[in-house]
């Protein structure tokens, strides 16, 4: 195809005297013809042939077969021909290393040429040939060129050191090139200084601990002098290098700022933004009452505004950075709102960014203008933009209290347009406004209700239902409205179902007489007909609450809600500080920690804004910790972002506007986990066949034969008791759910993670399978958990020592401790995990079976058990059934013991075996249970009681109509959550 295109082009241009003639050769015999021409005696023919070769190369054709013939043309005094051959060499030397050696002599000779242009060209090209054998020959010529009398050669050689370091770092160090490079920082020519800085910065990036860029007041002074005289690109290198320096005191800081400020007027926007970075960082050290401080603030605004009149691509990068700057120092741009107004032909990526900044700058002073603009945007054509504009109106209302009323009326106007997606967005944001200003704007509810039928997006439906439930007492027909949603209950998304459940319960508590039927209907829909555990759990909680203590129910369900915060999407402060130190970089465009952008973790250096130091206070040497290449311990490279960063990121994941509902919609991982629990789980725990590990099978098989007399019951606890007597926590075949995919490769740039949890020898293990489905090697794996309900945390680093090649798989098991920070999760056994490798940081959440937390010493003293059990009033007892279980009581008991569910006693009454069992969770909570097994009946009945180790307080029972044994976990979850609320 490509070829055909070229032929067409050729027909068009073939007659002209242009390079397109180089495309005219036909494929057949092309290489052969070129070979002949390259070996021609005529210089001109040779040159033309090399040009043809280069032309083929540029369009991606493989002409490497001509390597020896092209290299033969290298020894020439025609500079153009030489350059062309060099171009060719750079492209193909890597694939033909043996041939490339042929070129070495010419290189060495050219490095001695009288013409500095040729010397520089030779040293430059040699550095680009990434062949080890050649680099050895490069050292001597390079050494000479670094000290060349001509600055053009010196500056080229400086870059060459960085190239060589990239190929063979050890060689560069051994040959002392780094020291020579450092000396070049004091070179008399500013261009040489700039290139030396650039080269050193690049080398330092792969050498975080070396003291390469030793920044001190003297070297800073040299850099500042060179800054004024070097090229725009050199200025960027120098400014980025300056940004790594931490001045000793406010006076030094001010003097650097003064010398950097003129760069704000540079025509090159990259220079401007790098200068802004230096100033934003160093002004942190200036006292706020200083006159210069306010002068500097004023000087920062115009260049930032100017960036917005540049090309859209530049604007985009500028806007992403301005977003950070207005979060850190809103005062800089507070008067410049208008430049962020959107033009209708701005590219969409610019529009969305401008909108974001408009909201951040919105204040009482400019809100009228902002609202008028937003209203205008809400009538544009682009749906994404319109939606964001409507949301922005809501955010303005929440941010600027005085404007709330105007925002609400603007939203009402928009609702009147009846444009479907506008109406839905408006309702979602009005819900947030209600939460911020309760009991203020309820008069609009009637208007909202008129649009009930047009809502087809879950978020909007959920918001509307929330509003109806929350203000049920003021809406005469609230019951009718909610009932209308109930008809299609099972077709709704989880979000809507949960809201509907809560809203109807609210309604019931407010108007109990008329809505009894409705509440019963929704409770039975949620608990009996739904297979969504979230929904079921919430249904049961309400049911239990309503049936035991309606007063408490009222307190819980109708409790006063905390007001939602003003800004929902501010960047977490430590991350913001770090990003301010990285203004102008990719990190600042993506608002992600810079560590996410460095291949390999070595280059990661957390930067912090400097603290303010008075000139009198600091007599000691400056803290160079934040300087790249600095060696202060504080700057030790850290593999994982600090806890704060990670949490910030994990929290950022669900930055959705605040909703009232508790549990987020279940993730796929959870649904899969749920299915496994119900399907495979029963099998493994109680299944008749030998399901899980061999140990479990053995326990089961041996059980009938061993009947210890430790219990007065006729049959004892099985093999498990033997282990127990031995007092050793042996691997007893605890229930291990099958591995499921937690992190699909699609979401993690090629990394797939599947896994499960197991409890082995008393240690909780997270068993992971990492698969590299990307095209390149992955290294530097690390793992971290968010805070979770039971304080699970990795007990050691993730042991992936060898790099993971493409299509390779590795199995790792990560021991976990339960002493980490605790935070209640929803669902209770949810675990949010961050995994990092050289490519990025990935987040996923998974659920661990609660049985992992059952500890080995969960066997309660019989007397204690008896006393505790008796304390529970009979009417609190509730039961649930385990269906289709074909084990006898002993086998069940031994199998359960494998999962640390201990049988304390067994009794037989009228052919019914009754097992009494205890469980202890890792956080000291006890659970007591009774299991009844009727001979010949495959259904078990189970009763569970939970008590806390600390408070000794008995909690309510819990009924479950049709429950499998594994739902023991579920009911415990529920009880725990009840306990927590």
């Amino acid at each position, binding site marked *: 195809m490509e070829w055909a295109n070229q032929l067409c082009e050729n027909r068009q241009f073939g007659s*002209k005297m*242009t*390079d397109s003639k*180089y*495309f005219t050769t036909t494929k057949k015999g092309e290489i052969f013809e070129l070979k002949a021409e390259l070996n021609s005696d005529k*210089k*001109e023919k040779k040159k033309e042939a090399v040009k043809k070769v*280069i*032309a083929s190369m*540029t*369009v*991606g054709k493989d002409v490497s077969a001509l390597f020896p013939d092209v290299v033969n043309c290298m020894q020439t005094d025609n500079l*153009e021909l030489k*350059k*062309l051959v060099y171009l060719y060499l750079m492209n193909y030397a890597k694939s033909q290393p043996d041939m490339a050696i042929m070129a070495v002599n010419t290189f060495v000779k050219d490095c001695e040429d009288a*013409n500095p*242009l040729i010397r520089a060209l030779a040293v430059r090209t040699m550095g680009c040939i990434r062949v080890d054998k050649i680099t050895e020959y490069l050292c001597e010529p390079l050494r000479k060129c670094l000290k060349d009398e*001509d600055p*053009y050669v010196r500056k080229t050689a400086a870059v060459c050191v960085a190239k060589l370091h990239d190929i063979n770092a050890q060689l560069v160090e051994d040959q002392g090139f780094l020291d020579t490079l450092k000396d070049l920082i004091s070179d008399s020519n500013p*261009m040489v200084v700039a290139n030396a800085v650039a080269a050193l910065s*690049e080398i330092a990036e792969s050498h975080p601990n070396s003291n390469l860029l030793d920044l001190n007041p003297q070297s800073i002074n040299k850099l500042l002098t060179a800054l004024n*005289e070097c*090229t*725009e*690109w050199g200025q960027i290198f120098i400014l980025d290098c300056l940004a790594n320096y931490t001045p000793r005191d406010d006076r030094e800081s001010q003097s650097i700022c003064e010398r950097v400020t*003129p760069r704000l*007027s*540079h*025509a090159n*926007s*990259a220079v401007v*933004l790098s200068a802004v970075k230096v100033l934003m960082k160093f002004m942190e050290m200036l006292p706020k009452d200083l006159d210069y401080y306010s002068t500097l603030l004023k000087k920062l605004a*115009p260049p930032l*505004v*100017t960036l917005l009149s540049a090309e859209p*691509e*530049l604007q985009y*990068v500028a806007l992403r950075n301005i977003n950070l700057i207005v979060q850190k120092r809103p005062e800089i741009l507070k008067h*410049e709102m208008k*430049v962020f*107004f959107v*033009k209708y*032909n701005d*590219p*969409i*990526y610019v529009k969305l960014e401008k909108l974001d900044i408009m909201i951040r700058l919105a204040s009482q002073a400019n809100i009228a203008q902002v609202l*008028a603009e937003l209203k205008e945007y809400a*009538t*544009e054509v*682009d749906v994404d933009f319109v939606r964001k504009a409507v949301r922005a109106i809501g955010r303005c209302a929440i941010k600027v209290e005085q404007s709330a009323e105007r925002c609400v009326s603007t939203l009402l106007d928009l609702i009147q347009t009846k444009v479907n997606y506008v109406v839905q967005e408006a309702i979602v944001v009005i819900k947030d406004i209600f939460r911020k200003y309760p009991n203020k704007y309820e008069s609009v509810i009637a208007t909202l209700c008129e649009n009930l039928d047009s809502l087809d997006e879950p978020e909007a439906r959920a918001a509307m239902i929330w509003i109806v439930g929350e203000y049920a007492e003021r809406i005469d027909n609230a019951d009718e409205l909610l009932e209308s949603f109930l008809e299609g209950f099972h077709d709704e998304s989880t979000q809507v179902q949960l809201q509907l459940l809560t809203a109807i319960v609210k309604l019931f508590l407010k108007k109990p007489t008329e809505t009894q039927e409705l509440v019963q209907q929704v409770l039975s829909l949620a608990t009996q007909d739904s297979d969504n555990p979230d929904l079921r759990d919430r249904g049961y909680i309400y049911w239990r609450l309503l049936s035991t203590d309606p007063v408490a129910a009222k307190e819980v369900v109708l409790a006063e809600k905390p007001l939602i915060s003003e800004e929902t999407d501010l960047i977490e402060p430590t991350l913001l500080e770090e990003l301010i130190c990285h203004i102008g*970089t*990719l990190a600042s*465009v*993506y608002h992600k920690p810079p560590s996410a*952008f*460095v*291949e390999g973790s070595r280059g990661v250096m957390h930067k912090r804004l400097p603290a303010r130091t008075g000139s009198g206070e600091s007599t000691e040497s400056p803290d160079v910790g934040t300087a790249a290449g600095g060696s202060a311990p504080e700057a030790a490279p850290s593999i994982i972002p600090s806890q704060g960063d990670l949490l910030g990121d994990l929290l950022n994941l669900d930055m959705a506007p605040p909703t009232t509902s508790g549990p987020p919609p279940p993730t796929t991982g959870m649904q899969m986990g749920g299915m496994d629990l119900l399907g495979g789980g029963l099998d493994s725990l109680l299944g008749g066949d030998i399901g899980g590990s061999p140990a479990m099978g053995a326990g089961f098989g041996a059980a009938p034969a061993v009947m210890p007399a430790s219990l007065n019951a006729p049959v004892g606890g099985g093999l498990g008791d033997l282990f127990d007597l031995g007092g050793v926590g042996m691997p007893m075949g605890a229930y291990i759910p099958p591995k499921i995919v937690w992190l699909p490769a699609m979401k993690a740039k*090629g990394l797939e993670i599947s896994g499960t949890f197991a409890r082995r020898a008393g240690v909780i293990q997270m068993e992971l399978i990492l698969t590299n489905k*990307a095209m*390149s090697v992955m290294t530097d794996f690390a793992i971290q958990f968010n805070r979770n309900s039971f304080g699970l945390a990795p007990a050691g680093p993730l042991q992936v020592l060898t790099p993971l090649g493409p299509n390779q798989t590795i199995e790792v098991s990560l021991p976990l401790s339960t002493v980490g920070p605790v935070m209640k999760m929803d669902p209770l056994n949810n675990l949010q995990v961050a995994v990092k490798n050289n490519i990025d940081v990935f987040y996923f959440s998974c659920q661990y079976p609660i049985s992992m937390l059952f500890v080995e010493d969960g066997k309660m003293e019989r007397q204690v058990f008896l006393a505790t059990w008796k304390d529970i009033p009979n009417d609190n007892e509730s039961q649930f059934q385990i269906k289709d279980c074909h084990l006898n009581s002993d086998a069940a008991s031994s199998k359960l013991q494998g999962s640390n569910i201990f049988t304390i006693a067994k009794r037989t009454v009228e052919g019914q075996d009754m097992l009494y069992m205890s469980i202890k969770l890792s956080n000291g909570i006890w659970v007591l249970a009774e299991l009844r097994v009727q001979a010949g009946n495959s259904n078990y009945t189970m009763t569970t009681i939970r008590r806390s180790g600390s408070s000794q307080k008995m909690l309510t029972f819990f009924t479950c109509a049709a429950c499998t044994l594994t739902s023991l976990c579920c009911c415990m979850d529920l009880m725990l959550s009840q306990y927590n609320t």
Partner: protein
Amino acid sequence: MQLPAKMIHSLFLVNSSGDIFLEKHWKSVVSRSVCDYFFEAQERASEPENVPPVIPTPHHYLISVLRHRIYFVAVIQSEVPPLFVIEFLHRVVDTFQDYFGVCTEAAIKDNVVVVYELLEEMLDNGFPLATESNILKELIKPPTILRTVVNTITGSTNVGEQLPTGQLSVVPWRRTGVKYTNNEAYFDVVEEIDAIIDKSGSTITAEIQGVIDACVKLTGMPDLTLSFMNPRLLDDVSFHPCVRFKRWEAERILSFIPPDGNFRLLSYHVSCQNLVAIPVYVKHNITFREGSSQGRFELTLGPKQTMGKGLEAVLISSQLPRGVLNTNLNPSQGTYNFDPVTKLLSWDVGKINPQKLPSLKGSMSLQAGASKPDENPTINIQFKIQQSALSGLKVNRLDMYGEKYKPFKGIKYMTKAGKFQVRT
């Protein structure tokens, strides 16, 4: 082991139909399949200009600019300042345009070897090397028909044999030994006004982007100073590196040794806080009625605050709502055109005569039975005003030091509409 490769790794040129027609690698070769991520983004974008400028891929980042309907896609491997890359790409585009007159796929293909030589000269190991057009032209001579013919006959070369003189001097932007028989220095003050005008005709925002472009052909090493009548207008400026910043800070005078040939001396920004005079007004009445298949369209233009200078080259364009099937309009002058497929209305008005204001009136036919369009069209206006800088900026005098001869000096003013939009 892969070390972080700072700076620009590779460059791909992609045409509007999504073909890569040139690739250049400054380090190792990156497979062109990396562009698949770019093509995906291109497919997702509704308009060519909506492709996001920074695209992450598993191992690289793609930073692109769209110029002359060609995407210049730079590949970087790790943390590189995106603005640095974008600025560099702009410089590449400018250089191509400078060398070949136009920057098109055909021109690039016609000069592929020069392009390759240029790219090699502009970047070394991903570090920018020579990006000043003055210096590049000494290293690689721009192709001309004559030279191509001469080269073919004589076998001489496009490549300069000598180290460019300017590259290491204190004035890297100027070569030494410049000679002209006619010494002349021309300055163009060009202002573009961006504005948003609301329905009622009041200004929501207006700002002026100004530039002073120079064409200086002076012998030797002239040292110029340019002063303004009202330098206070310039509080937000970006200078060519040749301008002595200290002198500006202290005296508000532009003092510089100019590059040879064409260059942009200064760009400035007059923000909306200063009062910006709007030179044109639009009276409009564009209405759709519910249930009617006809809409009314009326537009009248008039000059306003133009300081006596005429509005020229006036061009109106507007994206009408999708529901509009066709229009039946009558221009009082000029020609109008409506494309029923793209719904783009354009009206080439020409000059505005203050005595006889141009108007465009008539009806629009709408889809029968459809509800009336939700959005109101925005009107985009282009115009020129010769001999006037809208901000009022005026050059006071231009002096030359350092050389003996008397140069010919000229200053021109012009105002153009930038993004000038009227909401209806």
